[in-house]
């Protein structure tokens, strides 16, 4: 087992750790977490560490469990379109030839485990879904060291509870993910992006026209700079013949242009260290939300109702968050502050109101009775 005392760089959102350990296998991780429990250590799991500072800081912290030694492809069964990956494997290192793990990672360096723990997604979630939809099996080590699996290596499987769903998006608060099995998709031979820029008031009609045209986009993205017009970009993927035809139809209904993905494609709109929001809405309310976000600008998946915004001014952040939160609630969605400078974190409720919190606390109490894993980082202070 690799372990060392923590250095100055080993903190989580400003809270310093005492130790850093990097298990090299599920067995080592189990042993480590058994010892950590015995010593009453508070634990935070670190993947690529690219966005470890996102979310509220932990209430306390002793040990960072780093997954950089838990790497590699355990299995790639091409004929079955599945793969099994160790959790510390960076997504950017994966190469399945003519197949792909269809997860768009917005940040370079993100690991498999971190991506599942944060349920990441990008533009192509419209066609392929998010980490939760692609995950078919999971191995975790619970606080206290118990190793547990759920799901398996076949795409179709309903035996037992789907713990993979529970751990997806749990931000390391229920335990350590050590292995994930995913379904893969073929890499389509051709793709095209069609774009069009219009005033924000024209967005609704454009999105409806795209929806009516049965061309099955892989992504419908929008980008609106502060007080600017909206650019719509639609991605289609498939055979060369099919893509040519679908793109031509989109060009017509959008009155747009066929070309490359725009420079902002799949990137968060905020600068490192800035305040970043995630905004969700029912599909029919996306145009309203985009109009309402004139002050901050907004970007993301209009095809699914998952968008992002940057807040430029720290001072105005509480007011802006409150206003956009009211807007997304009206739209059937939520506003989450993903990342923010310390001053802003203190001034806003990062997660906002969450339904079902009582049940969530009960789940946390069952999996992590001592509240050792990332205490205070999750919804409702979990």
């Amino acid at each position: 087992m690799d372990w060392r005392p923590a250095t100055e760089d080993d903190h989580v959102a400003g809270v310093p750790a005492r130790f850093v350990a990097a298990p090299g296998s599920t067995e080592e991780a189990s042993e480590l977490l058994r010892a950590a429990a015995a010593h009453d250590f508070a634990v935070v799991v670190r993947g690529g560490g690219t966005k470890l500072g996102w979310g509220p800081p932990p209430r306390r912290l002793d040990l960072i469990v780093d997954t950089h030694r838990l790497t590699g492809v355990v299995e790639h069964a091409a004929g079955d379109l599945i793969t099994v990956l160790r959790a510390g494997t960076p997504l950017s290192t994966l190469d399945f030839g003519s197949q792909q793990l269809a997860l768009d990672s917005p940040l370079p360096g993100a690991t498999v485990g971190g991506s599942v723990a944060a349920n990441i997604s990008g533009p192509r979630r419209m066609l392929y879904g998010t980490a939760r939809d692609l995950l078919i099996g999971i191995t975790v080590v619970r606080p206290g060291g118990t190793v547990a699996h759920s799901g398996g290596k076949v795409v179709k499987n309903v035996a037992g509870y789907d713990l993979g769903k529970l751990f997806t998006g749990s931000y390391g608060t229920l335990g350590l993910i050590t292995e994930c099995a995913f379904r893969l998709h073929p890499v389509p031979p051709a793709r095209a992006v069609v774009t069009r820029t219009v005033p924000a008031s024209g967005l609704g009609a454009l999105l409806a026209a795209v929806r009516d045209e049965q061309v099955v986009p892989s992504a419908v993205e929008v980008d609106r700079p502060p007080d600017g017009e909206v650019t719509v970009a639609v991605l289609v993927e498939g055979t060369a013949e099919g893509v040519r035809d679908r793109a031509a139809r989109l060009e017509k209904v959008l009155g747009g242009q066929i070309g490359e993905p725009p420079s902002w494609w799949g990137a968060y709109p905020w600068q490192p260290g800035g305040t970043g929001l995630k905004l969700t809405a029912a599909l029919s309310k996306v145009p309203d939300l985009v109009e309402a976000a004139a002050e901050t600008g907004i970007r993301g998946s209009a095809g699914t109702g998952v968008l992002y915004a940057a807040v430029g001014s720290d001072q105005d952040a509480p007011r802006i968050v409150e206003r956009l939160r009211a807007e997304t609630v009206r739209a059937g969605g939520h506003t989450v502050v993903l990342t923010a400078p310390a001053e802003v974190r203190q001034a806003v409720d990062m997660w906002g109101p969450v339904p079902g919190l009582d049940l969530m606390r009960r789940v946390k109490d069952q999996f992590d009775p001592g509240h050792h894993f990332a205490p205070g980082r999750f919804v409702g202070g979990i």
Partner: protein
Amino acid sequence: MTSLEELAAGLRTALGSDRVVSDRVELRTYECDGLAHYKVTPGLVVLPRDAGECARTVAACVAAGVPFVARGSGTGLSGGALPHADGVLIVTAKMRDILEVAPADERAVVQPGVINLQVTRAATAHGYYYAPDPSSQQICSIGGNVAENSGGAHCLKYGFTTNHVLGAEIVTPDGDLVELGGRAPDTPGYDLLGAFVGSEGTLGIATRVTVRLTRLPESVRTLLAAFATTDAAGAATSAIIAAGVVPAAVEMMDALAIEAAEAAVACGYPPGAGAVLIVELDGPAAEVAAQFAQVTALCEANGATELRIAADDAERALFWKGRKSAFAAVGRISPDYIVQDGVIPRTALPEVLHRIGEVAGAHGVRVANVFHAGDGNLHPLVLFDAATDGEAERAEEVSGAIIDLCIEYGGSITGEHGVGTDKAKYMPRMFTDDDLETMQLLRCAFDPAGLANPGKIFPTPRLCGEVPRRHSASDAPAPAEIF
């Protein structure tokens, strides 16, 4: 009065007497689901009209310490809705309203008793449909689909119920109404909805479900290909997948299943075929046209003896008729049969089929094979005659051996019918004690008293009061020793 009689009296007062069934003869009509050899007459049946009545019924069960079981249409094939003799069966048959169809949001909101196909019917006029399509879609309920995470022939491309349910209101096993998920994606917090889907009624009762509606495909093309052997049909399937095509469906039937379907519904499949494949592609017209040519060529290259392309919806329906009626059809060639449901990695198909043939032969039992070839979900139908001495036992052995094969090849003991009562005993073959204990942590969070559909899924229930073993620093190594 027994506690059940008291409960019945209380619910009659609270909900009205038409909601409560306690007549023995009437109760007997609820004694089993689609797996008819497990039978238990429920102690009491309640038919709530809305979420509030459902919650009050559960609360009354909790107060009386009486177990409750949810039931939709009772088509389940694993004994999931098997009642308790001393418990309450809560039937959603009177909660059948489609509350909202919102094409602009690509959502529909329905009560749990709504029949699967009705959702599609309500959405079609708007150019949408509900993608998960179990073969039982004309009768099974959305609540049952949610509980079983049901699949269908088209889930190869479109995913399962879990990928199409965005929100649900549930009655927790405490009797509280709680919202999980919502109309927009990615509700913050734990994905309790994802955990609830497929939990077979053990984490509470869904009282309202928000589902995704999918845009109707512009074009659908369906191919029926006959092969001399299941090996050849399997090779064609592999070739299609290897070419990077994701068909909407790839279904296979072997000679015995074809014979049964022919006898039952006269679907007119190519005579003498050792296996047939139904391959369906859907999507934008230009895309389907390009890939359909590819699929046809691959079937020919892999020895298809006959290819038929559905000329219209009527012919497509005929292709599907043979497949969709296959379970009931074997009743024409055998007095009794077991419907098995297991999963193997798709590439192991030829090998596993041979081994199923060997096991069946050794036991002197016939097995008809119907399956979702695209994703390796097998539905072997084990044929027997209960009137012949020992045949039922031998069929049971063959059926169990098939499940063992699925596990041996790294698959699953169930792909869509669920664990229920029937397969709880197999769970320890697929999962470790720690796995099963960990799953039950979730159950303890939702249902510490163990009143929601007890006895299903898990062979050994966990007592939620048990305090997890505490580790003390004195019996564990110091950090420096273990690191």
